[in-house]
Each structure stands twice: as structure tokens, then as C-alpha cells.
């Protein structure tokens, strides 16, 4: 602690250089934080997907429908406790950039299969009673300023025309990563109003009695519908969400690659700063050793400088990411879970500190091994 004023004096003897180095670290950490946030947002569905839920889709493609009659047949399979379904609606609210996911749902079973979405009972009853009723996630409601009782017109893209809905309920997720951007309405309303595709649904979600039975049930479902006009492909909700995210590309790999390049550059920048700082101060380090500063103390002083630079830069960068993400999804709906978690913040600062240690270690060891007579000769 008593060395702290000395360390800070040394740190800011070349203010411009120190500030630029801190700035470089802050920018690099900001980039890292942003990439991690995007990656997390893209994989949010994977992280919160239920381990006891299976998704049954058309084997050809997710956009191909399945017959409504499959619901009862799936229910008959052992270890299945509930089956619900949904259909992608894909309408536009005012402008295509106002994207949010809309599903026509089976109102009788949806809440049982997705208990993590919390809705006030009176609101749910009001939704059930209104054929044109809709339930909207809290994030989307806040985004457009919707409240219960509002009438919302959507422009159909799959089933054309203007579709009007009454907001009857607003749901909230019970876990940190739950998607609160969805818009649900009665599948029966879609069924009676659409011109084509009648008697079909988009996909089924199956709740199994025990996660250990998931593999068995998924095999049984696919076997049941094998060689039919609508063959199925069943997988866990987690696998389904992961494969959905992968359609955009291997984001994790991309983040890791860019992150590695950024960190390597950081290492060079910080390492260079510390090497220069030590090179300029060789005679002073010699004087310190002459006065009785041990090799370990000199190592500590130089490493501390490097660590402080990295920590300040890291805190700045991570703080900027936090500020940026507080504004919410910048894409207008593509990344509903745009959130920089405390855990990721800690990892960011940890990376900065590790870079500080690595970058400072060579100059610090050089300083530690300086021979006093050689150092003093450079005065």
C-alpha cells in the first residue's frame, strides 16, 4: 500500500503514452464485450431451453407444416405428459424493421408446456375469452408502448391482409434468459381466417415425464410418422435452439477468433509500453536497488504498473459495453436477449488483468535481473 503513490507517479510520468495504452485496452475490451453479448444473445434460446421438452418439426424443413392430427397421436406415446403446438405467423407491425416473433398457439396446452412464462390469471382468462386476443412479452410491449386493451393491426406476409388483435395479457419470463419479445394469439383464429394451410401447425413441443426418456420418446415419435406424407424430425429443445442459432454461422468460433486476435494485439501494445517504461528507467531502477529495494520489490513495482494500466483499461472497456447494452437490443428485435451479464463482465476484467500480467512479466523480470553496476553506468 505504501508503494502505491510511487507506482502511480511512475505510471503517469508519460501521460499521453499511458492514456493511449489504457484507451487501446478499453477499445479492445469493448469489442470483446460486444462480441460476447451478441454471441450470448444469439444463443440465448439454447441456454434457457428446457431439458424435458422436445421439438417435433417436419423432417424436410422447419417451414413445412405438420398435420394437426399428430397432436393426439403423439399424446398416446409413453412418457409424453403434454403436447402443444405453434405456427409461425411472420407479420409486420407498421414497418419491417419492427421485428418480433409471432406465434399462433394452442391455447389449451401452451401454458402447461411453457410454465416459465408468467401471466396473471385474470389476464389469461381474458385472453381465452377473446378470439382475437393476444399475449405479448413485456419487452415487446414496452418497446411499442402497448398495454392491455390496445388493438394492434399486423400486416400478414404468409397469410396476407391486415390482422387485428386485442392485447389481453402481458407475460414475463421467470428466468434471466427467458425471451420476453414473443407475441401469441389463438391458433383457432388463424385457422378460421386463413385461406390455405388449414388443418396444419408449424411444430409441436412435447413435454416428457423425465429428461432421461427424451431420447426414447423422440425416436418413438419419428418412428410413428416414418414413411408418412409428413415425416417428422424430433430433437430436444436445446438441440433445436442450437441448430437454429447455427443457421447464422458458428458465432462462438467467430467470437473466439476475433477475441484471440484482439487480445494478442493488446498484449503487444501493453508489452511495448511496459518495455519502454522499463528501458527509460534503467538507471532509476539501479538506484532503487542500491537503496535496498529487493529484486522481488522491483518486480512487484513494474508488474503493478502493468496491472493497473490493464485494469483501468479493462474496467473502462467493460463499463462502456455495459452502458451500451443498457440501451437494449440495437437491432430492433433480432437480438432480444442483448444483455452483458456480471459474469461476462468479470471475465472481461479477468482477461484484462491476465493481459496486464503477461505483458508486464518480461519487462518486470528484466528489471528484476538488472545488475546495479550496469544500471548505474547508464546514468
Amino acid at each position, binding site marked *: 500500500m*505504501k*508503494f502505491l*503513490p*510511487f507506482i502511480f*507517479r*511512475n505510471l503517469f*510520468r508519460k501521460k499521453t503514452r499511458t492514456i493511449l495504452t489504457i484507451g487501446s485496452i478499453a477499445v479492445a475490451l469493448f469489442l470483446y464485450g460486444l462480441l460476447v453479448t451478441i454471441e450470448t444473445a444469439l444463443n440465448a434460446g439454447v441456454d434457457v431451453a428446457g431439458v424435458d421438452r422436445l421439438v417435433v418439426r417436419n423432417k424436410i424443413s422447419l417451414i413445412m407444416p405438420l398435420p394437426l392430427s399428430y397432436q393426439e397421436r403423439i399424446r398416446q406415446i409413453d412418457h409424453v405428459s403434454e403436447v402443444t403446438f405453434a405456427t409461425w405467423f411472420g407479420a409486420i407491425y407498421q414497418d419491417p424493421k419492427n421485428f418480433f416473433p409471432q406465434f399462433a398457439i394452442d391455447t389449451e396446452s401452451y401454458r402447461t408446456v411453457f410454465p416459465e412464462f408468467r401471466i396473471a390469471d385474470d389476464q389469461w382468462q381474458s385472453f381465452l375469452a377473446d378470439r382475437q386476443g393476444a399475449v405479448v412479452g413485456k419487452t415487446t410491449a414496452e418497446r411499442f408502448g402497448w398495454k392491455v386493451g390496445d388493438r394492434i393491426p399486423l400486416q400478414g406476409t404468409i397469410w396476407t391482409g391486415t390482422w387485428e388483435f386485442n392485447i389481453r395479457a402481458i407475460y414475463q419470463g421467470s428466468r434471466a434468459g427467458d425471451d420476453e419479445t414473443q407475441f401469441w394469439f389463438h391458433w383457432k383464429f388463424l385457422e378460421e381466417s386463413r385461406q390455405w394451410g388449414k388443418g396444419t401447425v408449424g411444430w409441436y413441443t412435447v413435454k416428457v415425464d423425465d429428461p432421461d426418456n427424451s431420447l426414447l420418446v423422440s425416436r418413438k415419435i419419428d418412428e410413428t410418422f416414418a414413411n408418412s406424407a409428413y415425416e417428422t424430425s424430433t430433437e430436444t429443445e436445446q438441440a433445436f435452439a442450437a441448430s437454429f442459432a447455427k443457421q447464422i454461422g458458428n458465432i462462438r468460433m467467430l467470437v473466439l477468433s476475433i477475441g484471440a486476435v484482439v487480445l494478442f494485439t493488446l498484449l503487444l501494445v501493453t508489452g511495448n509500453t511496459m518495455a519502454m517504461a522499463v528501458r527509460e528507467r534503467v*538507471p*532509476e531502477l539501479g*538506484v*532503487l*536497488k*542500491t*537503496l*535496498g*529495494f*529487493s*529484486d522481488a*520489490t522491483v518486480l512487484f513495482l513494474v508488474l503493478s504498473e502493468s496491472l493497473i494500466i490493464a485494469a483501468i483499461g479493462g474496467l473502462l472497456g467493460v463499463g462502456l459495453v455495459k452502458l451500451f447494452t443498457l440501451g437494449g437490443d440495437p437491432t430492433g428485435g433480432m437480438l432480444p436477449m442483448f444483455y452483458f451479464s456480471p459474469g461476462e463482465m468479470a471475465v472481461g476484467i479477468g482477461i484484462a488483468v491476465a493481459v496486464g500480467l503477461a505483458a508486464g512479466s518480461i519487462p518486470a523480470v528484466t528489471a528484476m535481473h538488472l545488475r*546495479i*553496476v550496469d544500471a*548505474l553506468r547508464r*546514468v
Partner: protein
Amino acid sequence: MVSIDGSTHENSLVRVRDLNKVYRRGGETIEVLQGLNLDVERGEFVAFMGPSGSGKTTLLNLLGGLDTPTDGTVTVDGDVITSLSGRKLTSWRARHVGFIFQMYNLIPVLTAYQNVELPLLLTKLSKAQRRKHVETALALVGLGDRMEHYPRQLSGGQEQRVAIARAIVTDPTFLLCDEPTGDLDRTSAEEILDLLTELESEHGKTILMVTHDPLAAERADVVLHLDKGILVEAAEGTTVS
């Protein structure tokens, strides 16, 4: 009493025996010090003179534990410093030696107060105790009113006085001065020499000083001459074998 004959003196503070220092550069061997003996008693002010390359600074470095000899021993106040390990030598240096350099060697980003406080950071003294020591040392060198000044705000003579305050603040066993007036004008040099003389006569400090300046050497009790690594002559009052 100072002697260079290697005879045993019970009261010697500094005792050097058969000291050799050899440098090897490429294929060349340079014998900087050759079988040097020296005894200095407590409270003496000794000046080493000699041409460049005669080994004065090397001798000072060996006496202060900054360098290790090729052969021979250096004993200070009973401690055989030439056999101490690196870490022990470092802590011995912090307790027993005060260094004063030609170029002052102050840390430019620290104030006079902070420069003088530096050696005390290695002790267990509290902040208040450190302040008391630093203020006393700076007052002794006449810079009690310049404590918050940075080296760049001080004259050469004042910088050297801060360096002297830094050297005496831990109350070391002896002071090693390497050309302490070498970078100063005559007036400032006289002030520094007055200060060193005062430290010896009034505070009983043992001072070993390397200098080229005959006027500086005159202030010492004893002047020893080094030539090609050998103490070849001594001024009056010195026992030579």
C-alpha cells in the same frame, strides 16, 4: 586510523583483505583491483583519488555491496559482506550504507520529501515516523522549506543535498560518495563538502569518498591514491606497510 598494509586492527569498521576484481571483455582480462588491503575506523573521512580507470568506483561498489569481487573479502562492522547471498546483501545495504552519486540520481517524478522517504518505505516505520525522519534529514541539509519541490525545481547543489538527506535518513553505518561534487560549481561544491564535514565531525559519520577534485580531497582526514588497482601511496597520517 586508516591503513592499507593488511595488518590486523581490532577497531576497524571496514576491513578489506586481498581484494581482487577482474573483468573479462572478449578475450581480454582487465585486473581492476589487485590484492587490495584497507582498514578504516569508525568516524573517519577517507578520500580515494586516482586517474580514470584506476578502480576507484569499483572499490566503492565493492565496499557498498553493489558488486562482488573476484577474490578477497570485505568486512563491515563484523559482517563479511562478500559472503552474503544476494537477498541478504540487499537488506544489509538498506540498513548500513548511504550512497551519494555524482549525478544525484533522484527520482524525477517524486518530490524532495518522497525521494528522501524512499529508503524508509523498506522499513516497518509508520507514516508518521517516516515523516519525522524525513523532516529531520531535510532540515539537517538545510532544505526544510523545499520538501514539496521536484528535482527539476531545485538547483544542482540543492539536488545533491536532497541526495545526502536520502543517504542519511536511515542513519546508515557509513556513507559512500562517488564524486559528490563532480557536477557542481565551486560554491555549491563547497557547501556540499561543508555538509559532509559536518556529518563526520558533528554526527560521527564514517565517509568514504571517491573524487578527482583535490579541494574535495583536502576535506578528508585521509587521502588514498589508487593507481591501476593498487593503493600505491597514502597521505600523511596513514600507516603504509
